[in-house]
């Protein structure tokens, strides 16, 4: 009986536990979020500068990576073979440690018209294969004279080749890294070029046995310098030409614009060439085009630089410090059609150019230099006062929402967006809902315009204007959001004034979202 009583009490305690969530629906009428959008939210603040009168300037830099550094100077793979006959007519016994070859060599390489006197490698290899018919282990010491690993050490490697015979020679093969080595390529007397001084020593293994050799025995040494990638080269780097007939690069700045037009008031673009190469450069920009893939419109840049040869002087080197040579070409609305070029809102830019290094030949007496990681920089620097006419300029952005249907408590709701617009343009916002195949099947707002702020005679905003926009989120729309967590936000802007309208730093758009929502409250 006492146990039954205890059991009843225990059951009561353990039955008093929540089995599942408690939920109920409530109807909440409440402000939800508020925000203030300035021009820094619409454009990245790193490209905006503020003038003393609070007007804004776009300062945008775009790098044209036109130069393939691999094209500047390429070292071809080179194979060097050496054949050694044993210099004894009749069979002769050689003792362990006997050195029968000590062979310095000057290896001059063909680099076209380049005359390289010094070279440092970022990477490269020496590949070797030694075929020996000597019937005892042999030791090969391979040195590259006039080399430096950065710590004052020569390139020296020892290779052990197994014993072999005429019918079954001993073979050793492999490769060594040349990463980080600097080579003096002026030869033995320091008056040559493209030359590597090497030395090969061969001796019978000192720890081996005496071996009988004759003139029929031989050794073949094959060396290969492969995949040499220079960090820098000095000397006369030769003449080379580059021809890029047509290359295309993404523009990036106007990617979100899907329609509409932009009329720019003023624009100053500096096209700068920065030459880090210690050699003269001749450059011709054959064409530069603004491509808009949405409108299929193409605008070719017209300016003095197009189609004409431009000479750029060499950079100078002091120690390891490079002083580049910079040439700037100014483009504005007076000397070019750069405004039309950018008003095309390009999605890509297409260009064609020719370039020649050392067009005048070896005029530096072999004092050229080339650092592979610093060759030529081509930059567009755009300085544009933010003064424009926007003609239904429409931006599109895809927003990822993470609405977990299992945890979503919002059942339905009516939303009010209160917009206090201090910008001098009308705006229209729309949120498109997508199905699981990313097809647009519904929208949220009713297409109402957010009215521009009130302008004075100088087209400056003196008062904000308040607009109320309604949106309905019913159960079907919420299901869509849960199924496909992406929506498309479009915003359309239109300036009212017929003349260019300046944007000031204090302009902002205040937004407040109020909800009249049915929400599922819960206790877990």
């Amino acid at each position, binding site marked *: *009986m*006492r146990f039954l*009583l*205890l059991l*009843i*009490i225990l059951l*009561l305690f353990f039955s*008093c*536990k*929540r*089995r*599942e*969530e*408690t*939920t*109920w*629906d*409530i*109807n*909440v*009428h*409440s*402000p*939800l*979020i*508020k*925000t203030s*959008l300035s021009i820094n*939210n619409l454009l990245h603040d790193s490209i905006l500068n503020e003038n003393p009168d609070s007007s804004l300037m776009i300062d945008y830099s775009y790098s044209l990576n036109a130069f393939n550094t691999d094209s500047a100077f390429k070292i071809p793979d080179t194979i060097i073979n050496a054949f050694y006959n044993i210099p004894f007519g009749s069979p002769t016994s050689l003792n362990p440690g006997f050195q029968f070859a000590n062979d310095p060599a000057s290896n001059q390489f063909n680099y076209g018209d380049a005359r390289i006197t010094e070279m440092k490698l970022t990477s490269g290899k020496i590949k070797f294969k030694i075929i020996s018919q000597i019937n005892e282990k042999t030791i090969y010491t391979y040195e590259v004279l006039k080399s430096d690993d950065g710590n004052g050490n020569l390139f020296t490697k020892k290779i052990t080749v197994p014993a072999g015979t005429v019918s079954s020679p001993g073979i050793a093969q492999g490769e060594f890294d040349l990463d980080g080595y600097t080579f003096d390529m002026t030869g033995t007397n320091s008056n040559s070029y493209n030359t590597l001084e090497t030395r090969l020593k061969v001796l019978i293994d000192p720890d081996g046995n005496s071996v009988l050799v004759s003139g029929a025995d031989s050794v073949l040494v094959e060396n290969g310098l492969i995949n040499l990638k220079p960090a820098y080269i000095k000397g006369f780097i030769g003449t080379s030409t580059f021809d890029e007939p047509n290359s295309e690069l993404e523009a990036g700045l106007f990617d979100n614009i899907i329609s509409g037009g932009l009329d720019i008031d003023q624009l100053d673009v500096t096209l700068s060439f920065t030459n880090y190469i210690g050699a003269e450069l001749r450059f011709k920009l054959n064409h530069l085009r603004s491509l808009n893939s949405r409108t299929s419109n193409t605008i070719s840049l017209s300016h003095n630089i197009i189609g004409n040869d431009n000479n750029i002087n060499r950079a100078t080197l002091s120690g390891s410090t490079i002083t580049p040579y910079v040439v700037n070409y100014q483009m504005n609305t007076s000397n070019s059609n750069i405004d039309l070029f950018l008003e095309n809102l390009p999605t890509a830019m297409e260009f064609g150019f020719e370039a020649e290094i050392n067009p005048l030949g070896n005029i530096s007496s072999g004092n050229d230099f080339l650092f592979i990681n610093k060759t030529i920089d081509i930059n567009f620097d755009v300085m544009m006062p933010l003064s424009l006419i926007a003609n239904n300029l429409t931006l599109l*952005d895809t927003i990822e929402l993470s609405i977990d249907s299992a945890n979503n408590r919002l059942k339905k709701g009516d939303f*009010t967006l*209160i917009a206090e617009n201090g910008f001098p343009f009308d705006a229209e916002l729309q949120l498109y809902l997508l199905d699981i195949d990313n097809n647009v099947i519904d929208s949220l707002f009713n297409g109402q315009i957010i009215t521009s702020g009130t302008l004075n005679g100088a087209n400056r905003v003196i008062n904000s204007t308040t607009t109320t926009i309604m949106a309905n989120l019913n159960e079907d729309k919420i299901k869509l959001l849960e199924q496909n967590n992406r929506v498309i936000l479009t915003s359309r802007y239109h300036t009212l004034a017929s003349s260019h309208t300046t944007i000031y730093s204090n302009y902002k758009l205040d*937004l*407040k*979202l*109020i*909800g*009249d929502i049915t*929400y599922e*409250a819960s*206790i877990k």
Partner: protein
Amino acid sequence: MKQFSLIVIILGFISVDYSQDTTSTWKKTPPFVLSVDFFGGLGSTNMTNEFTSKLIFGGHIDSTLKNNVLDNTKKMNRAGFELNYEVKFYNMQDTFLRTLPDYRYYIGIGSYANTSASFTQDFFKTIFYGNASFGNTPAVFDNTTLFQSNFKKISFGLMNLKTKTSFALSIISGNNHQLFDFNTARLTTGEDANELTFEYDGNFQQSDSIANGFLKFSGAGIALDYSMHIKETVQLSITNLGFALWARNPSSARLNETINYDGFYVSNVFSENSFNVSNSLDSIIPNIESKAFVSFLPAIIEAKKVINTDKELQLNYGLRYRFMSNYFPYLYIGGFYNATEQLKLSSALSYGGYNAFEMNFNAYYSTNTYYIGVGTNNLLGNFSKKGRGRSLLLSAMIKF
């Protein structure tokens, strides 16, 4: 008879449940006695059993259920839940002190859990319907109190068999304590819901919200239990008269604030990381400092008629009150029937507690070795979804 009286005296010291007197056929005083008493009950002046069942155990509360409760909701309402038990071990054969031959001692452990609320109609509507139906009219929450207390006790007591008095001193281990006490409070939705304003003046207390399990000593204190007979007619008792100090990670404040909320601020809608719910809530919820506090325990005071074990049928009545617990004085009156030597029955009509009118029923059975009692103070509520409360009383005693 002496045995019957002994059991009556022992059971009379037990104040966990409402009425538990009985007779017994025990022939001689047992050397040791183990008693267990349990009471669990909930009640409300407006919430039906179906509603509270879903609120406590889970489920969806639909509009029909809410509307039924709203029809019963008056300007001020109350609801509460109690879960109490005590286990005691009595040594009946030895005196505690040689100089006090009439005194016997006991050792006990117990647990008292109570959650209660008194709230306005507007409070109920706001929580379960939302603020939309109020329009611009303020929702008034004046005198709304939410209280929760949970503690364990270890007791040492003495009882005088002659005078039928007993007292015990308990060490209290507090599990948790929460109090939201609004003297005045109102929630106003601004025009077009442009802003919400919450003005309130009240007290707030909360013990450690993390480490609050059994014997965690989130709070610690002492309490006194006392019981006496007045002229062999009425038994008067008080249980858990004491206090607890809540010193580990507590929060306590007297608040007089106006909170204006006009939307969470997002610094950049185009950036995922510009909005943090936790930081945004911090900006509107007032900062409450960590401050230790002392609270009185929700003591229980009872006065009840002493049952005459010789009478076959007699009047039975009593009064109970629980402090600090949104509790209305509980009064019951009814009859007690000695059916047989083993079986006793009682029934009464009652008013108060967390409910209004209720009907009690209890049954007791005893043998030479044990006694058991079971009952409820809401007979109809236990079997009806539409009732507004449920309860269960269990008591047992074993001699060995």
